[in-house]
């Protein structure tokens, strides 16, 4: 019998200020399902950490080793383990949320009921209060008889089979391959005795569900093959509509945290916890959970970083998934968040170390601050001065998102230039060629005829090969000129033509950028 517990801090953030009063982050206690591991919960750990929560988890007794180790483990053992972990971590946070998947949700609910949990909220993912899903076997009702036969509960194996609780065929193939490789992410089978313990757990919850006092979110798939929506309805009714609400998923089976609707599950949970999520609209919709003074201080700190051109330093003030939205059609344009934000910050420095200056007075609306500013940069004799406004979105003391609105986009497009094809060598020649082809269409000034013919001939040589067919007649001057240009490349190999094309396009893009 094994049991291990884990606590993980938010990614790249020491102490996210989820609670304005104490500056201590909220915690989430996650409980996996029968025969499973934290894999059951998909990316929920990561999503919660990125949103600034501290996550706590445990490996339930009998799990994480061999299925045989589940024999002899009782529902009370599992309840005891989660109660012990709960007592261990609840004092660490002003709010501690409980969250469980499948059997883990039964345990989370029983824990909430027994501990009269009101310190945080409760999330129940696919709770199997009734084992009545559309793919449960026809002989499921006979298990009560088998429990009565000595020895059968320990020796009879209940196997995991197709569809493995997953509707997405690609994901199912991955899970199947994991099972075939013998990866220890989920037991291939569990003893029948364990199903008996789950049945006992279900009975305990059905008796005590009305005593759950915290706000509860039940997430359940309509097509859950193991347990029907009747389970979710039961819990919502028992806990009460005032405290409990339900999200019904339309494109998943039982394993909702890894199936098609996993993004909906993650967002529903984060919203339910009132978590910080990138996106100004979300920030506007949510309470900022910051005092006006804290918001003003956060804006001041952000402005200081932007004024110093220290974009990388912004991450110290932000959630790990900080998003920056840069307008225009240039090499800096786009939405950059998470890892791509670091790359963007580096690229921006190479673009003439831009910084913001001439900040105006911020205007506040809930967690949003709108700050007039000017973007300045200098590179190779070229100088940028672009006026506009910065939209800064905050939540729980952390910067969520920066959006720059330039008054005149053309100024920035001209300064930064179009995105060039990546330097040959860093990507394949084919990819560089494709990128150059795309870049050639973004040129602002039409090249002269000779350049156009050179590009045409190189393009055709690279994509088709040697010219073939008859030379167009003298009256068809355009096509004749094209044909002649292409003919001059005869014998040139494909790679050389592609390389020459890439170089030519890159020269044009670079000259425009200057």
């Amino acid at each position: 019998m094994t049991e291990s517990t884990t606590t993980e801090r938010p990614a790249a953030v020491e102490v996210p200020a989820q609670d304005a009063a104490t500056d201590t982050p909220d915690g989430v206690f996650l409980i996996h399902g029968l025969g499973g591991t934290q894999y059951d919960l998909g990316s929920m750990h990561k999503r919660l950490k990125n949103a600034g929560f501290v996550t706590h988890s445990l490996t339930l007794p009998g799990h994480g080793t061999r299925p045989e180790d589940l024999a002899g483990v009782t529902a009370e053992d599992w309840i005891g383990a989660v109660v012990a972990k709960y007592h261990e971590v609840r004092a660490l946070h002003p709010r501690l949320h409980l969250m469980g998947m499948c059997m883990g949700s039964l345990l989370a609910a029983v824990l909430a009921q027994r501990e009269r949990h009101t310190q945080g909220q409760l999330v129940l993912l696919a709770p199997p209060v009734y084992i009545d899903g559309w793919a449960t076997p026809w002989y499921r009702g006979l298990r009560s008889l088998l429990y009565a036969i000595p020895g059968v509960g320990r020796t009879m194996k209940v196997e995991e089979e197709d569809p493995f609780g997953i509707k997405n065929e690609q994901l199912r193939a991955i899970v199947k391959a994991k099972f075939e490789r013998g990866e220890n992410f989920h037991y291939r089978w569990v003893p029948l005795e364990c199903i008996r313990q789950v049945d006992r757990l279900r009975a305990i919850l059905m008796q005590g569900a009305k005593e759950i006092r915290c706000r509860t979110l039940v997430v359940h798939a309509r097509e859950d093959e193991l347990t029907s929506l009747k389970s979710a309805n039961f819990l919502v009714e028992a806990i009460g509509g005032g405290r409990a609400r339900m999200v019904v998923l339309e494109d998943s089976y039982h394993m909702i945290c890894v199936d098609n609707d996993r993004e909906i599950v993650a967002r529903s949970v984060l919203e339910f916890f009132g978590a910080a999520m990138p996106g100004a609209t979300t920030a506007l919709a949510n309470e900022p959970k910051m005092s006006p003074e804290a918001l003003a201080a956060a804006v001041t700190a952000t402005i200081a970083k932007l004024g110093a051109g220290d974009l990388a330093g912004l991450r110290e003030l932000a959630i790990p998934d900080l998003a920056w939205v840069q307008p225009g059609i240039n090499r800096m344009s786009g939405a950059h968040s998470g890892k791509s934000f670091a790359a963007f910050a580096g690229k921006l420095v190479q673009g003439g170390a831009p910084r913001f200056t001439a900040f105006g007075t911020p205007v506040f609306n809930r967690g949003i601050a709108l700050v007039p500013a000017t973007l300045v940069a200098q590179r190779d004799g070229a100088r940028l001065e672009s006026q506009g406004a910065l939209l800064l979105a905050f939540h729980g003391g952390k910067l969520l998102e920066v959006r720059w609105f330039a008054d005149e986009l053309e100024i920035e497009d001209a300064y930064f230039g179009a995105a060039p094809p990546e330097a040959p060598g860093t990507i394949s020649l084919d990819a560089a060629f494709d990128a150059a082809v795309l870049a050639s269409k973004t040129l602002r000034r039409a090249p002269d005829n000779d350049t156009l013919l050179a590009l045409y001939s190189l393009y055709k040589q690279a994509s088709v090969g040697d010219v073939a067919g008859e030379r167009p007649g003298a009256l068809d001057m355009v096509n004749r000129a094209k044909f002649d240009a292409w003919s001059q490349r005869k014998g040139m190999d494909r790679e050389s033509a592609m390389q020459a094309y890439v170089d030519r396009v890159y020269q044009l893009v670079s000259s425009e950028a200057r």
Partner: protein
Amino acid sequence: MAQQLLIVVLVAAAYTAFGALSSLVAYAPTDAWTVWLASGVVLGLLLSLRRARWAAVLGGGFVGATAFAFNLGSAALEAVGYGAIEVLASGAAALLVSRLAALPLRFHAVRDLGALILAGAVPLALVGAVLAAAWQLAAGGTGFGTTLRVWFISNFIGTLLVAPVIISWAQFRVRRSGGMTMPAFTSGAVACALFLGTLWLLFSGSVAQRFGGSVGAALTYLPIVFMSLVAVLWGARGATLAGFVGALIAMVCTAQGNGPFAGVEGFLGEAQLEVEAYALAIALLGLLIAVLGAAQRQAAHVAREWQTRFEAAIGAHRLLAYEWDPASDRMLVTGDTLQLLGVAPERIAMLADWLALVAAVERDGVAARFDERVRGRGEADTLRYALRGSAGATQAATDEARAIRDHDGALHRIVGIVRVTAGPVESSA
């Protein structure tokens, strides 16, 4: 070793039990065993278990056959002889089946069923019949031909009624989810109840009194319909089990002088043989339907796995594959069009639907190039143009197509691969 001994004991017990069951349908006046179910137990287990278990299974068969014969009044040596015949016949049959089909046997293909009948039941019955007749002749008995015939028929029928039940149920595993759905189970249960119910109605009394005239004989076709339904809904496990129980009902009732066959034949022994052939035909028909269904599901499973692998590969590279028939203008697009283009694949049924996704300024040029492709000789034609993305944004598409022609050079299809890349667009149309 203890486990091997346990298997010997269990097989011997099962053999004895099925032997006793066979005596229920034995024709008492001639002491003829018209069906011998016990041989099916041994062969069924041999074809279901690993080779390492074969010795124990054959040992159990030997003990069971010897004990049964001894109990019937055979001398000790004679009883041992019957035990040895059981081992030789079953072992030889299992070895033959293993030459034709992979063991443990699964009813996933007609080949498996064919192997069971031709390499399993026939050799088992034949080898047993020859050895038994020879043994009886050597012991000074008479009636070599009669022994040969009765032994062959009773073993052949008995094996085919019992072995499939064991083979199909040996693969049964308790599962958390998956397999037969509850609606299929319930429907199958209704069909099974109708199958057994009609058999009981037909065979439990005098059909002449119950139905009058020749109606009773005509109604013997009715269970076949219900057995077909059971096989379709329940598969091999349900079909074999229902077939076995149904056969027992028909045979036991006939042995008691009831049912349509007993009513027609004056000599009950003939009726016994007829009802066994009838029951066997129903059981095998059910199994055949179940095997065909399983083969179809297996083929669909293989196709789905292939499709999953293909979609994973092209999806990872943001590729779409299409097939365009210029004669009908119909287009078939494969790939995640919903993700890449924001359109379900069935919405792109014609070339015009595809062209509607192309940027307006390039649409005519792309359409013209598709027309040119019809005149192509099969060489690759690469085209770059802008396609509407899932979020309404424009994205670049590199479309490489070829014409497929028949042996006469007539155009069959234009097939192409489109790579969709986000970003600014270059056109070669």
